[in-house]
């Protein structure tokens, strides 16, 4: 079946026949996946660059440079994973028609994103303690410092955009202009940010620390 069906808000919802390969996935969802795959290439390129530089620069940690705070970053990881959970539960609540719960969970997700960004600011510049910059990890002074700031900064930019995306969807949802489909697309983006962080945590923080970096 094809054609358009009027939605509850009067906008035409384009009908999309189930596809033999992609089932009932909408063009919007497939489009979001294509975007995420291309974005994954960006992160992949950065991590590969780090790998190449790591192989050619030993010792990786230059004299005077601080170690990365793995316990603190583990807490940030916990925060980010928690927001993936609140996000997907928010979608499930929206799909079940529990609007208040869905809005609350989306708000919590945005709050978690802000907490992650505050944590990253603390790690870089320091708020309640010295940041890496003040401790001697200065951008441009070593391959380790440059890759660290570029990779975590690029990821932080994604978190920042994600928080804005969540807030935009949340406001639209509260006004009745956003459906569960759009919340699911938001969830794909937000969980991708968590997905990428898994590799950053391993490749930027954990693996180099095995060699004393």
């Amino acid at each position: 079946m094809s054609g358009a069906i009027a939605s509850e808000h009067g906008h035409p919802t384009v009908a999309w026949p189930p596809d033999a390969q992609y089932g009932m996935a909408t063009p919007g969802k497939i489009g979001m996946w294509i975007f995420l795959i291309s974005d994954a290439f960006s992160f992949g390129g950065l991590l590969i660059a780090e790998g190449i530089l790591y192989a050619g620069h030993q010792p990786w940690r230059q004299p005077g440079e601080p170690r990365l705070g793995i316990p603190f970053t583990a807490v940030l990881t916990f925060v980010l994973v928690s927001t993936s959970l609140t996000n997907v539960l928010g979608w499930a609540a929206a799909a079940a028609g529990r609007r208040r719960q869905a809005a609350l969970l989306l708000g919590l997700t945005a709050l978690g994103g802000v907490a992650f960004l505050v944590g990253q600011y603390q790690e870089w510049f320091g708020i309640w303690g010295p940041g890496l910059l003040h401790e001697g990890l200065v951008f441009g002074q070593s391959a380790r410092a440059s890759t660290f700031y570029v990779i975590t900064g690029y990821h932080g930019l994604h978190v920042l955009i994600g928080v804005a995306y969540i807030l935009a969807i949340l406001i639209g949802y509260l006004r009745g202009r956003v459906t569960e489909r759009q919340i699911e697309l938001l969830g794909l983006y937000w969980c991708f940010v968590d997905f990428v962080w898994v590799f950053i945590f391993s490749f930027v923080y954990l693996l180099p620390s095995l060699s004393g970096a």
Partner: protein
Amino acid sequence: MSEKEILQPAMSSAGHVTAARQRAPYLVAFAVLIALTLVEIGVVRSGGVPHRAAVVALIALALAKAALIALFYMHLRYETRILKLTVLGPLVAPAVYALLLMLDAARRHAS
């Protein structure tokens, strides 16, 4: 195909939509993700794991965590096989390239 079916959330079938709305799998995935993260920290901080084994373990743990996120939180588990392959192949490929480079670096460091 009925209007109701067309307006269903975009998943491979209505049964999968119902499955995706269950909260329990998300909570279990969360618990496993946290547990795997704690194992990662343990591998790094214990100091008793041989270097090469620690590298392999950390990469395997990262891939396991990423797979959990993609399959459960990003709903790939409920999509068609073709969509899964379309997404997972390119998503994992850069990580594999990076993995090979890191393994090479670890080998050089060990030798």
